[in-house]
């Protein structure tokens, strides 16, 4: 796919009106066949939230050959348990998330701790568009055009001390804004973490947008992390605090079940999840629908060239 094609793609998002009128058509057709009461059940609706344009320069190093996942699925099929456990919940309930005013506090083992406002954060470094594969631990994947800049740009500003070995990310947890917090699925707030060298790796993207727009609320607005060689849950959404530590931070899913969700969670087809194999994945939105063939999962999600050296000599079966 060429770069100018992508520009076009981001404008090919189905306008909401057309999308809805098509839905109505399907609904009325369903109603004719099965009675009005069943119509809503026979046509499943998705919601999308409004976003603003975000100017970003496409980075030619990150243009995979794969087809982009449609905006509809990128923004309608999400794991964001603060808004419910169903994949459709975030799109349906994230409207209540207040993304402004928003500040991110960077603290811990740094020379210059700071609390920075989202507007200052947006201007901290030039915005790039990078198209990354996103592999979820559940065995599905997407290809998403993200907008952001390397997290290292922010970390260099606060100057990590020599004693800092890890970076912890704390995300928002507010019962008033997040209906999912009613269920104690994990200990809120959701926490994630990286080793400092992973956090400084140029691939690790501090992300503010997708498809050339500011992040929709269900995708972790206003600022999230994208770590493309690790399973999706490592990419924390709606971040409010970044802490540099000497000890490995306790991350939410590892705390819940360390056997299923390791700290590293690098995409690895050789290390099975206890409940399923990770050797293959399903690409979301494959036009073949239920007959879509499974794709072979790549080591480090295909980003080995840029990240494998960080794990030299480590037993990735043990440090999964």
């Amino acid at each position, binding site marked *: 796919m060429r770069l100018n094609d992508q520009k076009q793609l981001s404008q090919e998002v189905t306008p909401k009106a057309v999308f809805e009128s098509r839905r109505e058509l399907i609904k009325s057709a369903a109603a004719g*066949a099965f009675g009005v009461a069943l119509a809503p059940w026979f046509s499943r609706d*998705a919601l999308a939230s409004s976003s603003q344009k975000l100017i970003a320069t496409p980075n030619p190093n990150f243009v995979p050959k794969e087809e982009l996942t449609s905006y509809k699925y990128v923004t*309608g099929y999400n794991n964001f348990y603060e808004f419910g456990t169903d994949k459709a919940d975030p799109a349906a309930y994230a409207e209540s998330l207040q993304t402004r005013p928003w500040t991110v506090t960077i603290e811990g083992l740094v020379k210059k701790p700071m609390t920075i406002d989202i507007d200052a954060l947006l201007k901290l470094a030039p915005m790039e568009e990078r198209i990354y594969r996103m592999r979820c631990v559940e065995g599905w994947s997407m290809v998403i055009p993200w907008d952001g800049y390397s997290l290292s740009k922010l970390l260099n500003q606060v100057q990590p001390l020599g004693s800092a070995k890890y970076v912890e990310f704390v995300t928002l947890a507010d019962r008033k804004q997040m209906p999912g917090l009613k*269920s104690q699925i994990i200990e809120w707030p959701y926490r994630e973490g990286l080793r400092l060298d992973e956090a400084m790796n140029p691939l690790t993207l501090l992300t503010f947008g997708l498809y050339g727009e500011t992040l929709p609320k269900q995708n972790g607005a206003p600022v999230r992390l994208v770590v493309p060689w690790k399973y999706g849950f490592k990419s924390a959404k709606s971040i409010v605090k970044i802490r540099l530590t000497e000890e490995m931070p306790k991350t939410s899913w590892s705390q819940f079940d360390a056997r299923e969700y390791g700290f590293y969670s690098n995409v690895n087809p050789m290390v099975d999840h206890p409940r399923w194999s990770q050797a293959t994945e399903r690409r979301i939105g494959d036009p073949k629908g239920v007959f*879509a063939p*499974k794709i072979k999962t790549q080591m480090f999600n295909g980003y080995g060239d840029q990240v494998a050296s960080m794990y030299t000599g480590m037993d990735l079966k043990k440090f999964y």
Partner: protein
Amino acid sequence: MKALIFLLALLPLERLIWLGFTDGLGANPMEFITRSTGTWTLVFLCLTLAMTPLRLISNLTIWIRYRRMLGLFSFFYACIHFGIWLWLDLDFDLAEMWKDVVKRPFITMGFISLVLLVPLAFTSTHWAQKRLRRHWVQLHRLIYLIACTAILHYWWHKAGKNDLDTVSIYAAIVFLLLCCRIPYIRNILSRRSSI
């Protein structure tokens, strides 16, 4: 009435086919049809188990006339559920299937549930009932065990993400339905109906 239940029981399948043709299965169609057929297997299993308590409470034997059909529909959706997995997930690779059944407890439970349903489906005829007599009743008590293995299958599938709200509701319903089989509670239910 039976014909109506038959048509209603086919609706979940018709809906999936309809959604399949109208691009309505969502972002992850495989997951959607797998979960939907699994859910309907369990719903029909619960309905099957509800017929006896309804008979006891209402003192009408009409309920038992629907029990066989509901049970067979549970088996029908279980076969589709299993078939989707075997075909679209495993591509009929039986060695791979067996590896999964042995290695992953939640699949073990699902598989046991299906295997145990098979003799019940095959002996659901009047003819089998007459031939087996006493043994028929004993054999068909397997459904109580199947209800437990089915819930475990679902529970362990969801436990990994600690997403237990829905499965808890089903577990509670199955628990209540099984409680109705305890002689003491059975008597209470039928006594209520004779007042």
